[in-house]
């Protein structure tokens, strides 16, 4: 059985290994350079106590490689498209399920070995990518929030890969044709990832809110935080966001002159206006990784269960 699976999927494996190798070489080379630059920078800036100023400029010339790393976002999806979706759909489309499911092993056993191997491969694929990117991001993480690249490092890429392959298998069991299965897997995967990333993830744990004096310097929260929102809060707890009408400003704080007006920050502060920032602190990074990974693994299990049910209880 295992040999059969190897024979059927060896092309995909060769492609996967090839793509990962290219990515690794790219990341290893640029990552080593980045780590070196970072250590040089640290040594210099601690000497001159200028670390906070230089950090923003440190990797500013590496735009395209940063884009590439952000692009590794799609790597788990590729696995679902090219291994998950065709797993059943290709058998149905080419009629080979008739051959496979009339051999001396039951459909359940056939499914078990195919699904287990697909998941093992997905875990390896996701873990390899996550390990590479996590390592590459170490210097970057030190000067930027880890949350900024939440999706491509840590353990979630593994969960995304497993989810993608499970989704592909489940979709293939419904559509029974390769192209519709691939297209649907793509659509559903992107929709679920975006929905969770945008609407659910900020609320896994109640964010921390901090009131800061309006007159002080603009703050982005503690280093490494993920800012959920930031803006002005009025004296009665009304949140104005980043801009508000002049009519909301107490009369005393308005100075009008021909052609415009301005608002005095210190006057506003005296009238009870604050800067309110809501954020997830850096220390919650692994909690969030754990919650998100668990969510995707649970969905993957449900999808695999569904695929088994389709294959075992319905006509082939």
């Amino acid at each position: 059985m295992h040999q059969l699976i190897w024979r059927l999927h060896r092309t995909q494996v060769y492609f996967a290994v090839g793509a990962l190798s290219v990515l690794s070489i790219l990341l290893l080379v640029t990552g080593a350079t980045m780590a070196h630059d970072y250590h040089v920078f640290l040594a210099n800036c601690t000497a001159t106590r200028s670390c906070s100023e230089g950090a923003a400029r440190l990797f500013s010339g590496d735009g395209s490689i940063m884009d590439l790393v952000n692009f590794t976002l799609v790597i788990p999806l590729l696995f679902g498209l090219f291994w998950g979706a065709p797993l059943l759909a290709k058998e149905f489309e080419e009629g080979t399920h008739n051959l496979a499911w009339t051999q001396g092993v039951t459909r359940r056993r056939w499914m078990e070995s195919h699904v287990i191997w697909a998941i093992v491969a997905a875990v390896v694929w996701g873990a390899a990518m996550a390990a590479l990117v996590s390592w590459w991001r170490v210097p970057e993480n030190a000067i930027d929030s880890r949350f900024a690249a939440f999706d491509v490092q840590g353990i979630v890429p593994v969960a995304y890969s497993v989810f993608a392959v499970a989704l592909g298998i489940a979709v293939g069991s419904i559509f029974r044709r390769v192209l519709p299965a691939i297209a649907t897997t793509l659509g559903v995967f992107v929709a679920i990832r975006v929905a969770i990333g945008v609407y659910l993830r900020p609320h896994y744990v109640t964010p921390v809110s901090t009131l800061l004096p309006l007159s002080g310097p603009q703050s982005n929260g503690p280093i490494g935080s993920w800012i959920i929102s930031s803006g002005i809060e009025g004296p009665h707890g009304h949140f104005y966001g980043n801009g508000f009408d002049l009519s909301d400003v107490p009369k005393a704080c308005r100075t009008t002159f021909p052609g415009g007006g301005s608002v005095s920050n210190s006057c506003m502060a005296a009238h009870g206006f604050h800067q309110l920032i809501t954020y997830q602190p850096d220390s919650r990074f692994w909690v969030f990784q754990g919650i998100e990974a668990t969510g995707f693994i649970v969905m993957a299990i449900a999808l695999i269960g569904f695929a088994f049910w389709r294959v075992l209880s319905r006509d082939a």
Partner: protein
Amino acid sequence: MSNLDRAPAIETTGLGKRYGSVWALQECAITVPQGRVTALVGPNGAGKTTLLRILVGLSAPTTGEARVLGRAPKQSEDFLSSIGYLAQDVPLYKRLSAEDHLQMGAHLNHCWDATAARARLTALKIPTDRPVATLSGGQRAQVGLGLALAKRPQLLLLDEPVAALDPLARREFLSSLAEAVADGHLSVVLSSHLLHDLERVCDHVILLANARTQICQDIDDVLTSHRVLVGPRRNIDNVEPTLDVIKATHTAKQTRLLVHLNGPVLDPVWEASEVGLEDIIMAYMDQDDSLSAGPLSLIGAL
């Protein structure tokens, strides 16, 4: 075990399969003893594929019951090992070679006779190291047959195995099959919409038409129980009740009947003669088209 050995190769009662609102197979009651080579014939859409898929456990019936070698078709290694199945259009993994398929079979089956399968393919000069997509239709069919036979099944079911083959490949395929049957204790069912192909190798026939069973008998019995009667022109209502008229054709003076005999032909006006299997089958197919208004003929009318 001895019970199973004596059980019919196939036995179905009231078997039916419905897809949506259309019955693909209805009231199918057949019994095929072991050791027969059975032709499963009928027009396209008669339910041949549906019946075979139910018998191998790929599809579950809507009504009725099927028993294969005394067992209900189900997902057990025991059952799956006892049947060999070659689906329509010979599905194979295109990029794998025949040798890959043989090794795959060895992994997926407890009982697997790779030696005989390799010998058969070699004797037919079929390259076993090339992707099967590069083989001819006839060669692929032989690979498919080889895989089904390598399981050493007790019952081999072949769905339209020769439909897409040229006459030479067809002949070769049927010879391979005949050899395999001669070699061992094997029951075979092979379907076709053309009886002509199968008459040479089969000794039993099932006719499905309009999703129902019309005939399920040994070919010899079919031949002895049907006659062509020729006599002066008369209305078929006046034919004696022991004769089932399958088909009647009239000329100005004569009436020609193809009948199924339930007793001897007593009326001396008839001149009886034997009739070939193909004519009998065609008569049943014609009869069904003209007499019934089932879903299939409705579709035909549209």
